[in-house]
């Protein structure tokens, strides 16, 4: 295989912040190369330099041995470098047809003023056939496509221009499993045709499935490049974190108490249908399902943030009517919502103000705020949750995703709630912070709190939960104990399947000792 791309000692600074100090990435023709690192390691800066969004301050980029300069996305595209961004919607024009979207760059480039619809449709069709996706009609409006289909349209756009390099920036994050599999087969096909693919993901299992080599970055620097076939996940995680943390999460059985939550026949006007379950004190209950199964809706319905919810909810044995989050908090619940920047935090406010907010009465005398008490509490949670921040007055925008999430959890600590609802708490969080969050959830359960852990990351849920409820299409379709839960079985139920009896026994004897992150 020939060296297609070589990025050497790339450096990039933003003001006083050094985003990249020594970025390296080498890509061979037809290779799938995974780029890994915790948040803030410099991955996105690397790919933004490669796709021409930023110019590098130092270092050189060679394509087929020649030094090239990529000062704009247009130049990158002229060199055959295309990027499929995570937020596909920003790159798709919803009002145009699929074909027009696929061939958009060639309109933008100029050329003939008159467009032949037929010709466009034909070219677009050819590109989709190459991706084995001819079932997407080229005359449909792009706005009506699913996320996965939109990704394919973006890939087709790259193909039309005979791309040499395609960058996939966390492409599987919003996809269901079958959609991910489809995407992988497309990536494999592209690489077999000689296209170099750069693949970024937070999910290690799929990195091992798809990539030929893995480059790990840490703190803006290249750490190592591994050949996938010769490496294991522990080695990679160690390279990403600088130390092995994965062993710290041994499962320990712990005692559970009475029910803190008992839900009977809960429904809402939309997604949720007839949901009943309970959570005991000291128990971590995982609620697992694919994206769109209704997990977030359930969390919000329990917390009083949804409309027209019917059914009964008992908290600590008391029948409770929850019509507003205010009631839920008073009854002893805490919600760590999925969209933390949008729903969980006040990102432009200081850490101190965020931390004290759910329980302002505790931090005020009569009507007046007591800033000393607020500061003390903020410092407490910084210590306890190992939040990396300047001080208690730092606005949260300056914190990384993982540290923001810790604040979103920590702010509930002043209330001493009975029941914590975690909605996808590890979403967009790097491995280091993930481990801290898992430990924290374990600690909460250890101190007798009930925890509901809503997640579509099945392996994480298996690692943390004492018991797992599988959701599919707004209903709880199966309850599995820790011993019964395996990735395969959960997936089967989550995607609406049923298992045959003899399979059950075969799968029931599985042991797990740690969370695979």
């Amino acid at each position: 295989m020939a060296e297609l791309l070589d990025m050497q000692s790339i450096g990039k600074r933003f003001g006083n912040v050094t985003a990249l100090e020594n970025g390296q990435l080498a890509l061979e023709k037809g290779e799938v190369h995974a780029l890994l690192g915790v948040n803030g390691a410099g991955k996105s800066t690397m790919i933004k330099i490669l796709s021409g969004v930023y110019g590098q301050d130092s270092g050189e980029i060679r394509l087929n041995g020649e030094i090239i300069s990529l000062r704009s996305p247009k130049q990158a595209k002229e060199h055959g470098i295309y990027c499929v961004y995570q937020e596909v919607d920003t790159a798709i024009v919803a009002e145009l047809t699929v074909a027009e979207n696929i061939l958009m760059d060639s309109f933008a480039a100029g050329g003939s003023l008159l467009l032949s619809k037929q010709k466009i449709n034909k070219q677009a069709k050819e590109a989709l056939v190459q991706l084995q996706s001819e079932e997407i009609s080229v005359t449909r409006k792009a706005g009506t496509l699913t996320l996965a289909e939109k990704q394919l349209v973006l890939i087709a756009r790259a193909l039309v221009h005979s791309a040499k390099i395609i960058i996939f920036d966390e492409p599987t994050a919003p996809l269901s499993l079958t959609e991910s599999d489809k995407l992988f087969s497309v990536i494999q096909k592209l690489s077999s045709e000689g296209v170099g693919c750069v693949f970024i993901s937070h999910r290690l299992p799929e990195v091992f499935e798809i990539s030929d080599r893995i480059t790990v970055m840490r703190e803006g620097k290249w750490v190592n490049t591994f050949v996938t076939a010769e490496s294991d996940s522990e080695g990679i995680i160690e390279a990403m974190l600088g130390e092995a943390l994965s062993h710290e999460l041994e499962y320990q059985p712990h005692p559970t108490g009475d029910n803190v939550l008992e839900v009977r026949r809960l429904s809402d006007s939309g997604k949720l249908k007839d949901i009943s379950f309970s959570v005991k004190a000291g128990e971590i209950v995982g609620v697992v399902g694919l994206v769109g199964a209704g997990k977030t809706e359930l969390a919000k319905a329990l917390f009083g943030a949804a409309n027209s919810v019917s059914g009964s909810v008992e908290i600590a044995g008391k029948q409770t009517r929850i019509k507003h989050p205010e009631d839920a908090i008073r009854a002893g619940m805490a919600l760590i919502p999925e969209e933390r920047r949008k729903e969980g935090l006040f990102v432009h406010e200081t850490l101190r103000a965020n931390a004290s907010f759910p329980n302002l009465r505790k931090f005020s005398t009569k009507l007046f705020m007591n800033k000393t008490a607020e500061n003390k509490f903020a410092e407490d949670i910084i210590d306890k949750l190992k939040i990396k921040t300047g001080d208690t007055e730092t606005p949260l925008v300056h914190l990384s995703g993982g540290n923001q999430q810790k604040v979103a959890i920590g702010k509930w600590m002043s209330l001493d709630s009975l029941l914590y609802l975690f909605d996808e708490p590890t979403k967009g969080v790097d491995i280091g912070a993930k481990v801290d969050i898992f430990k924290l959830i374990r600690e909460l359960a250890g101190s007798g709190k009930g925890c509901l852990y809503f997640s579509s990351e099945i392996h994480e849920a298996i690692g943390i939960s004492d018991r797992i409820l599988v959701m599919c299409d707004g209903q709880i379709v199966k309850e599995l104990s820790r011993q019964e839960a395996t990735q395969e079985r959960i997936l089967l139920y989550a995607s609406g399947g049923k298992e045959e009896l003899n399979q059950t026994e075969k799968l029931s004897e599985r042991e797990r000792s740690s969370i695979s992150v």
Partner: protein
Amino acid sequence: MKENAVQFLFKYGAIILLIAIILYFSSISDAFFSYGNFSDILRSISIVTLLALGVTFTLVVDGFDLSVGSTMSLSTVVTASLMVWYDMPLWLVLLLPLLIGVAVGLVNSFLITVIGIPDLLATLSMMYIVAGLHRTYTEGYSIYNNMPLTSGGTAPGQLSEAFLWIGQGQMLGLPVPVWIMVVMVLAAYVILNHTRWGRILYMTGGNAEAATLSGVNVKRVKTSAYIISGVFASMAGILFTARVGSGQIDAGAPLLMEAVAAVFVGYSVLGAGKPNALGTFFGAAVIGILLNGLTIQNLPYYAFDIIKGAVLVAALAVTYVYAKNKFAKT
């Protein structure tokens, strides 16, 4: 280097500007830098400051009350009419206009939180409706002592001395309206910056969804902000009547943009970056001093709007340039 300059300008720019303006006018006019003139300036900004405090509260909750000018106009003529037309006792004369402010605030917040009209559009509509109400109420005439009535005869009442004292009297060496303004600014400052209520108002404005999920009843908070805004506008109207000694129609309309400008100048005082009571007072002072100095310079009054507009643009430019820098992706 460039970032530091922006930081510095944002933090101290407004204060430096104020000092520069004072120095400039003092150097060209002897009448400018005197106790009498400054007490005049403070009195002249007291009404706008009250109006601007109301706008501040609505901006804090991420709303925007454009109806304050009209509410002030309505309160002005109602206050005058209660005395002139109906000869009512002073306590009622002071109370009823405030209740009108509460009512306007309630309607505003109903449109915004219950029906779901965006703040700017809802209060813009209310601005017209309330302005129309106050003109209809007076049939287009201003209200003054013993005015002739359309139904024949003259009005029975007069604006009382005690009432006029509110707008024209002196107390401890300063005009009464200045005292009212100082008390209200301090009260608003303490409430917004040092109490639980203020925290809830600011956090709701920062992220309504997160506030809801932290247990705040956002609708109730927004409603209270609009009621406060209406009450401040009514107070401004009462003060205006007492100051002028009659119920002028359309008294509040020209003050709306001045109040808005004061609030936005206030954003940048000492780098607050958000609406705040002391900043609002400071903003009103900057505009007041500027206009006073220009009057001494014989600038024609019809050119004042150019100055007010320019101050607003400058304040907005500083605020938005700063926000772009501060919250840019690092």
